[in-house]
């Protein structure tokens, strides 16, 4: 419709043009041209804004991976990823981040062992057991849990969890186990909100069918609805993994930060994230570059997890 209008007006413009080149400025001043120009211009402006995210991702990839590559070139990929000694400031420095990679994996795994069952059960509660009046209160409350800054979680861990663990378990409280509990709590809102949405998306007929066959409420929920929402719940868990593995500030005062492979769950560990934050302040030269490379390894992990999440989500949408 737009085009038709501009065409008819465009005809008049042509007339004007034929009348004389002198009138050229008038062409640019004519309302039809200006309107058309403004439309096109703003579309381009919106498009450029839309490209900001592409530009950001590209820049982040380039800078992180290029920075990481410089360190890997010097240290050697096998030595960097597989080396178990992290002594960046020694006279004969060695840069092996294997303990930190394992630290991140251990901490993430443990946090999931604690967070996933509780999270899924709570999601089932929210979707199928919770009375309506309670749901009105609990839903925003759990959303608040997601909004608490990680530095506050970390401080809570330092002041409460570490002394508690020190009291009841061996070790000094700064341990992998403490990190599990804290991150297990932190991952709850992610798992709850996504799993609840997945559970609610299951058609009511599944539940009714199970009841009609004589199943109890609990059996109907756990034998029909939960299996049907499986891929959605899994997507929530994968998103949770992404959150936990990238968590930094909640961990620094809790996990002990010793750069070695832990012997027991009550030993301290250091993750890739805390390795970066703890040492970046004073690192120089190759040390600094290996820290950036640590970030690159972490970033690679995240990209992998993101891809997995995208695949799972697509699968759920297809269903």
């Amino acid at each position, binding site marked *: 419709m737009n085009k038709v209008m501009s065409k008819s007006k465009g005809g008049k413009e042509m007339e004007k043009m034929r009348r004389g080149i002198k009138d050229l400025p008038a062409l640019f001043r004519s309302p039809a041209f200006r309107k058309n120009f403004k439309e096109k211009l703003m579309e381009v402006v919106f498009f450029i804004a839309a490209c900001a995210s*592409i530009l950001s991702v590209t820049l*982040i990839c380039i800078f992180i991976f290029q920075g990481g590559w410089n360190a890997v070139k010097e240290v050697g990929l096998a030595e960097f990823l597989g080396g178990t000694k992290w002594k960046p400031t020694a006279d004969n420095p060695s840069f092996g981040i294997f303990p930190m990679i394992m630290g991140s994996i251990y901490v993430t795994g443990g946090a999931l062992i604690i967070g996933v069952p509780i999270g899924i*059960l709570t999601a089932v509660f929210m979707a199928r057991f919770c009375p309506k009046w309670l749901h009105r209160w609990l839903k925003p409350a759990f959303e608040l849990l997601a909004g608490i800054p990680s530095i506050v979680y970390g401080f809570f861990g330092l002041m409460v969890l570490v002394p508690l663990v020190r009291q009841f378990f061996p070790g000094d409280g700064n341990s992998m186990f403490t990190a599990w509990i804290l991150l297990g709590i932190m991952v709850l809102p992610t798992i709850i909100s996504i799993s609840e949405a997945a559970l609610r998306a299951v058609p009511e007929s599944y539940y009714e069918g199970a009841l009609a066959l004589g199943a109890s409420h609990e059996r109907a929920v756990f034998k029909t609805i939960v299996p049907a929402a499986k891929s959605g719940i899994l997507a929530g868990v994968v998103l949770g993994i992404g959150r936990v593995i990238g968590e*930094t500030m909640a961990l620094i005062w809790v996990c002990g930060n010793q750069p070695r492979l832990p012997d027991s769950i009550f030993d301290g560990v250091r993750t890739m994230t805390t390795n970066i934050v703890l040492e970046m302040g004073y690192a120089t030269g190759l040390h600094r570059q290996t820290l950036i490379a640590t970030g690159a390894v*972490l970033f690679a992990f995240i990209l992998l997890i993101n891809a997995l999440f995208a695949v799972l989500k697509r699968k759920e949408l297809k269903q």
Partner: protein
Amino acid sequence: MNGNTQKKSLRADPFSLVMRGLVWGAALLTAGVLLALIAYILIRGVPNLKLSLFELEYNSENVSMFPSIVMTIYMTVLTLIITTPLGIGCAIYLTEYAKRGNKVVEIIRLAAETLSGIPSIVYGLFGMLFFVTALQWKNSILAGSCTLAIMVLPLIIRSTEEALKSVPDSYREASFGLGAGKLRTVMRVVLPPAMPGIVAGVILAVGRIVGETAALIYTAGTVAKITANPMESARTLAVHMYALSSEGLHTSEAFATGVVLLLVVLMLNATSNAIAKRITKGK
């Protein structure tokens, strides 16, 4: 369904009984942990809120959090100035202009999704490498704000997109029918009813900005001073809390800072939720 058969079947069926117990237990545990966390910070923090913590200048004696509060507001505003136009523009392009199944659109979506999954420490590293080192902005408010702007960009895109999508197509059709162009339709007809949703997203973004630490330590730095110059270093409230707690000397002040931080963030999130809820109710 009546309660009697329910009870009977529960007694006969241990699976159901156990599952019911587990489900209620898990929900109670989650709610309890949330309550404990907030109550603990409040109980330990509120008594430590002293007037000296709000003195104009920071020094090692009063450990005032006032400069960091001011700088948090400064940095939040600067970040929003950078990120809101980009995020809203992107969402407008995606929902109003882009054709369905367009390759570019898919790439933009993928990029936004990738951004939302990147942890803040990686943003911090990138900000340090790009804004601080490559562009030579040093540790500055501007470098911190730009880093945060990228970090909250996907959040603003997503909430704006959802808000725009919730505007019924009949609005657009009516506007076109009256002879308005695309741009006028978007600006005058589609955006106003979508505004509450966009605002809810922006408030959520403010919550993320205020609570952020890892992305700021090596981009904006940790200087505790009020300054108007965006090229100078400054610390936000969250970074202030990190610095206090790391030093280990000012635990009670850290608690007080934690209370302020927690309350501000919770209030922001609650406001955002309330606005979002009003929108879904209004429909």
